[in-house]
Every structure is written in C-alpha cells, then in structure tokens.
C-alpha cells in the first residue's frame, strides 16, 4: 500500500474567509483577529446610535404598527428625515456612507425594537437597490441613488414567482428586446415582494433570450433590470395578510408589456442570476446583526421577569430550569453577535469570498433567535402568550426569518456542498495523480492517518492565536476541524457525485460546519476580550467555554452519525416513511380505536 501523505489545511484567514479543506504538504491555520473599529469610527458609531435608538424608543410604536398593518406615514416621514433609507449610499449621493460594520450596528438597534420596520428598511436598501450600488453604471447610480437614499422613492427586490421560490433560476418572467433595440418588453408577475405595493424603483429579474457564445443556440438566461413603476404597465396587488412583520408591505407585482429602456439593464445581459445571488449574499449580514439585537432585548425582558416573579417562595432566577434557559439564550446571542461582526468586519476588510460565512450567519441567527423568543415566552408563562406583553408579536415577526432571503434548508445544503466542493476538487487532483491504485483503500487508510496528523499539526498554530485561557477550547476546535475534513472526504469517497442528493447527510454535515464556525467566532472574540482585559472577559470566557463544550459534542455526534450504520438505517427508514405518507395523502397508521 502506498503511503499517502495527505495533510489537511484548514484555513480561516481574513482574505480567504472560508473553511476549506485542501491538500498541502504542510498544514497551516490562521485565525485572524476579531474586527476592530478605529477611534473615529467608534465615535461615529456612538453619534449615530443615539438618534436611532431615541427614535425607536420614543417615536416608533411597534405594537401600533402591527395592529395597523402599516408603517404610519408620519413614521415613514421621520425615518426619511432621520436618513434611515440610505445608510450605505455614499455621502456624495445623499446617503450616510456607512461601512458594513456601522450599518450592522444600526440595524442591531432596529432589530431590538421593531423587526417589521427593519424589514421595510432592509428590503429597500439591503436588497431593493443594492444591485444599483454593486452593479450600476455611473449614470444609473447618479440617477437613482439620491432619491432612494432620501427615501423619496422606495425600492424592492423582485425575484420570487409562484412557481419559483428556492428554485430561483426557474423564473418565467420574460424580457424581450424590442425591434428597434431601444427597450426590453417585460411580462410576468412576482409574488411576496417586500415593499412591492409601495416601491417606485424595482430590481426585477426576468429571462432574456440570448445566443450561447459557444454553441450558437438561443437559450433563455436571467437578466436584471431597474424598473420604474412610472414606465407604465406595472401594477401591484393588495398587501398580503401575514403572520408577522405585518407593518412591512408584501404584495404581488404584475408586469404587462412594460417598456424598460435598454440603459436600465443592470449588469450584463444573461448575468442576472449572478446579480441576484450577489445582492442577496451582500445583504445577508444585516440579518444576523438585527437578530442579535432582538435577542438582547428578549434576554433583558426574560431577566426582568425571572428576577421579580416569585413562585414557591423564591424568585424564578434561582431555579435550575430557569438558569439553563437563560444560559442557553445568552450563549446563542453571544455566538450570533460574534458571527455577525466577524462577517461584517471581513466584508469591510475587502474580503470578496464570504458567501459561506454569510449563509452560516443567516441560518444560525434565525434559528437561534427563534429559540430565544420561544424560551422568553416560556419563562413568562401565561403572560408571555398575552398580546399586552409584546412578546407574541416578536415571535410572529421572527418566523419568516428562517424562510425568506434564502430558506435555511437551501442555505444548509449550500454550506455543506461548498465545504465538500473543496474536498472534492482536491480528491480529484489526488485521484489523477494516483491513477491505477485502489483509491478507496488508500484513502480510508489515509483518512485515518490524516486525523492523527492533523490533530498534531493544527493545535500548535491555533493555540498560538487564541488566548492562553482558551487553549483547550482551541484544541477542541482543531480536533473537530480535522474530524470535519475527514468526514467530507469520506462522504465523497462513498457517494461521489451522488452526494448532492444525500440531504439527510448534508443536513447533519452543515450543522457541524455551523457549529465549527460558531466556535471559531467566539474563540476569536473572547480571546480579544481576555487580552484587552475588559470587565466582562471572565463572563465571555464562561460563555465561550460552555458553548465550545456543547458544540464539540454536537459536532462529534453529527459527524459520527454520517458513518454509523444504525444511523444510516434510520435515514433510509425515514425516507421510506415519508414516501408512504405522501402516497397515502397523510398520516398512515390505522386509528388505535379502529
């Protein structure tokens, strides 16, 4: 048997920003230092938070907005005056010119008070006109950004159709170039568009027929357009009645022979899908920041309750069950916040490859926030269920976050497949080099050897970057990383290309990947806190150590289940059960009383 020296390089550094498994002779690891604002940026931050927080504390009334199912006109006006509609638009074009980190910090404030208003603002600037910011020509930017930044005109991101949600590339709206070549004629309809009923400027995605450069055949490819309601032919339906974020307008939008001037093509013809994915990717970081703010407020409410409410002669806070809930809520908030600002910091540093981290941040934040609001209500008992407490509204607002902007289910697949892609490309390279030998046998031997080698190789390098007090957590992380890399390779060996269909496995792999990133983020942040000796360093260390312990256990369980025969049997059994349910039209068992 050939001795294969495969060593894992797991690299999480500022400019690569991705967890990837690659084949190198020497393993190396760099965990970059946690994002830091300079003094001037910090001062700006404080100056901007103050009016924002005051506005949401004193002027905006989230409960009223929910009941009235709209953002009241006078609040819209105040938000316009506040400058809330163009936070990241350059100052020269009438915006506030914020960096991603500063924007994240502000939406964190908004998230703590009113998620519906947060979505109205986010749908407008985080995705609604982000395409113009990222891909617009000079003329397009100068024409549209000032009025969008002032809030005079509202924007919307129009991609989803009734037959195309997660499967975005299957959209059917069509834009055909006119005979005189001066306009695209757009026909189609979009559903569930945030701000759809009030937007004047829309980023619309439609199929355009184009000649394939290589084959010469005419194929439909998606293109992106800036469409103004004023072009004529654009109508929108009534506001949808929703479970939550009721004040945010959601509507169908119809395009009937809309004449779009060719100058309003956004990006290149046929490149619309990339434009769409980039916009969504670019706006995703805001969500984790907003939700970390929501969670913080929810924890405050929970604490207010458990430190005052007395049952069985004691304040609730002394009971273990209550303590477990509070601790879990605090850890989830800490991880979310750490991930959010790690991501925004990377984006500000000029990192271009952050789609994996953005996806992880959205999945983690939305699931953590759901758990936190659920536990907050539970701690309040019956009171939590009452409208007056204001918590049920937050839960209703929260539900959509796991669904829209890339459903968590799709994003999890993306996370797993991206990780596997790197493992795959390097395995392929290795296979080429070792043609003729029995790869499976070699690799399984190699994998075993790798884990041992990786453990020894990586630990010193992470430990060097992390504070001494967290050395054993760093060891937990590197060991788990080695396990993860080995799992990726093992999955590819077993399933090859068919791995993309193995969703039971991919889900567990993605959960492990998310936990790994969470560990890295909190280790980075807590190390900084300990090094700087901030007053809360000890508490942050406790949060980090506890989270890492539980995360490591989950990672081992999830990765172990990928190879365990009994667990794989369970997967197969569940698939069969699901098939039968679908065949039957519902739950299958005969009633116990029959």
């Amino acid at each position, binding site marked *: 048997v050939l001795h294969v020296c495969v060593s894992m390089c797991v690299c999480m550094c500022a400019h690569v920003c991705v967890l990837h498994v690659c084949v190198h002779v020497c393993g190396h690891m760099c965990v970059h230092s946690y994002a830091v604002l300079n003094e001037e940026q910090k*001062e700006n931050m404080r*100056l901007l938070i103050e009016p924002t927080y005051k506005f949401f504390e004193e002027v905006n009334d989230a409960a009223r907005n929910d009941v009235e199912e709209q953002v009241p006109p006078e609040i819209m006006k105040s938000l316009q*005056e506040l400058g809330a509609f163009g936070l990241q638009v350059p100052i020269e074009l009438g915006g506030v010119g914020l960096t991603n980190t500063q924007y994240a910090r502000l939406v964190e404030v908004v998230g703590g008070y009113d998620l519906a208003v947060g979505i109205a603002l986010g749908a407008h600037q985080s995705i609604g006109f982000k395409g113009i910011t990222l891909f617009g020509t000079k003329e397009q930017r100068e024409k549209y950004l000032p009025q969008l930044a002032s809030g005079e005109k509202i924007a919307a991101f129009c991609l989803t159709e009734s037959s195309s949600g997660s499967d975005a590339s299957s959209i059917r709206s069509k834009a055909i170039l006119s005979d005189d070549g001066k306009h695209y004629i757009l026909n189609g309809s979009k559903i569930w568009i945030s701000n759809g009923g009030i937007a004047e400027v829309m980023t619309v995605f439609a199929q355009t027929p184009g000649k394939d450069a290589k084959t010469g055949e005419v194929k439909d490819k998606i293109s992106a357009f800036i469409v103004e309601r004023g072009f004529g032919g654009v109508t929108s339906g009534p506001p949808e009645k929703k479970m939550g974020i009721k004040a945010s307008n959601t509507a169908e939008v119809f395009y009937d022979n809309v004449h779009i001037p060719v100058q309003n093509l956004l990006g290149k013809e046929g490149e619309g899908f990339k434009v769409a994915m980039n916009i969504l990717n670019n706006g995703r970081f805001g969500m984790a920041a907003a939700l970390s703010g929501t969670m913080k407020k929810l924890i405050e409410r929970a604490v207010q309750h458990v430190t005052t409410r007395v049952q069985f002669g004691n304040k609730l806070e002394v009971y273990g069950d209550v303590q477990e809930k509070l601790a879990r809520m605090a850890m989830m908030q800490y991880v979310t916040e750490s991930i959010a600002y790690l991501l925004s910091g990377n984006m500000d540093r000029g990192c271009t490859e952050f789609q994996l981290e953005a996806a992880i941040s959205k999945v983690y934040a939305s699931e953590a926030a759901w758990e936190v609001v659920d536990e907050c209500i539970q701690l309040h008992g019956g009171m939590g269920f009452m409208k007056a407490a204001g918590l049920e509204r937050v839960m209703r607002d929260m539900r959509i976050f796991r669904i829209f902007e890339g459903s968590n289910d799709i994003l999890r697949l993306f996370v797993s497949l991206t990780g596997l892609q790197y493992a795959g490309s390097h395995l392929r390279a290795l296979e080429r080099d070792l043609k003729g030998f029995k790869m499976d046998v070699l690799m399984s031997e190699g994998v075993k050897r790798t884990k041992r080698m990786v453990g020894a190789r990586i630990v010193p390098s992470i430990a060097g970057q992390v504070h001494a007090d967290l050395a054993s957590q760093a060891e937990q992380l590197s060991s788990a990383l080695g396990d993860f890399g080995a799992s990726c390779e093992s999955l590819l060996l077993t399933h090859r290309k068919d791995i993309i269909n193995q969703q039971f496995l991919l889900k567990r792999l993605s959960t492990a990947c998310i936990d790994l990133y969470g560990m890295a983020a909190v280790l980075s942040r807590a190390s900084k806190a300990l090094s700087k000796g901030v007053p809360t360093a000890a508490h942050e260390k406790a949060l980090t150590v506890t989270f890492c312990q539980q995360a490591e256990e989950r990672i081992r369980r999830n990765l172990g289940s990928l190879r365990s025969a009994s667990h794989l049997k369970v997967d197969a059994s569940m698939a069969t059960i699901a098939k039968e349910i679908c065949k039957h039209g519902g739950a299958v068992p005969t009633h116990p009383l029959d």
Partner: protein
Amino acid sequence: MSGLRVLVGCKRVIDYAVKVRVRPDKTGVVTEGVKHSMNPFDEIALEEAVRLKEKSVASEIVAVSCGPKQCQETLRTALAVGADRAIHVTVEGEEYEQLQPLAVAKIIAKLAQQEKTDLVILGKQAIDDDSAQTGQMVAGILGWPQATFASKLLKEDGYLKVTREVDGGLEHIKVKLPAIVTADLRLNEPRYATLPNIMKAKKKPITTLTPKDLGVDTSPRFSVLSVEDPPQREAGSKVANVDELIAKLKAVGVV
C-alpha cells in the same frame, strides 16, 4: 450682517434615563462607563437657536461645552442639529470635578465678548447639579439683561419678548439685546439629529481652548462635603386604634 450671533451652552451630563449610583467614597456619583448625553434643557436651548436661524433672526450659532475630551461628542451632536461652529473649553480631571457655575459663567461671559455675541441661550439648569445659576451669573458679569425660565421667545426690533414660567404663573417681559435667555421645558420640542447631518457635521469646525486662554480662574468657591443616597424608606407599622396611634406619635416625640 443683520442676524443675531447666538452662543449656546451644551453641557455633557449623565443621561436622564440612567440609574445614578453614589461612589463608595461618597465624594460624588459614578461616571465611569456610564451613558452621558447633552443636558436636556441645553437641547431645548439649541433647538431655539436653530429655529431662530431658520427664521433668519439668527445668523450664526456657536455651541460651547466645558469639560473633558468626550465633550466633543456632545458638540458634534450640536453641530449635527444645526450649530455652525463649536468651542470646546478643555477642563480635565480634578479641575473638572471642581468646576462650578461661577467658573463656567466667567468662561461663557468671556467667550460672549470675544465672539461679539448678541444672544446667549443656556438651559435653565443642568440635570446633574440642578444649580440653575450659570445664566444669571453670566448676565451679572456682563451687565446684560436676563430672561430666565423662558417658555416663549420672540424677536421684535432690538428687543426680545420673553414669556417666563414663574411660581405664580406666566410673566411677560421685554429685554434689550444683547441678552441672556435660559430655556425652560416648554420652550420647544427639540429635533433629533439626522444621520446624514451627523456625518456632514464632521466637517464643521471645533476650536479647542483652555480656561487659562480665556484668563479665567476655575478654582472652586465651595467644597462638597459628601454625596449620599437619600435615606431608604423604612417600613411603617400598623396601629389598632387612634389611642395607639397617639401613643406611638408621642413616643417618637412628634406630638
């Protein structure tokens, strides 16, 4: 330049919503790491100045703050709300702890002279020390008329018509310019600084001076002996009847 030159005081104080805690050594209250903001009455003073400018009654607004480096944040907010320039009189450490209304009044008076100010608008009092003296002392030092506790302000020719809130009700007076006005709660409702204005305000100038530059002696004229919490409210006790009540009142010597 027909418009008035206005000088507005913007004191940095502990935010009104913060729960204030007394320092263990009883020399003052805890300020480290505590949220600070502009004195609410100064926000009202500033808002009045900005409204005068919007009506073209005022031509220039200068904001002033005395204290440590962090006062520049307060001044940045003032610039964002609408002041044209700001002056930061640097006072640090021990000198700042001992800074009292008389010293501040001297500083403001000197600046008013230097800046050829026509109208000084201050908050009626600061919410940390509640002295309510500075405006009055500035008037005394300069020999200018004062209109304190103003709830309404109108300019007519060379005069100001001011409505004052006093214990007996409302008083309407006329003062010649130049004058000092101190702002009361109902004078106006201050606007919020907008985010774009905060960023634009970064280009407006802040000049830094020391009290020495102005020839002002900031040494204190009184010393604070101790700062304490108000006594904890104690539980009462129930009495069975009027006789017992009288007996108890006699026992504590109030009857």
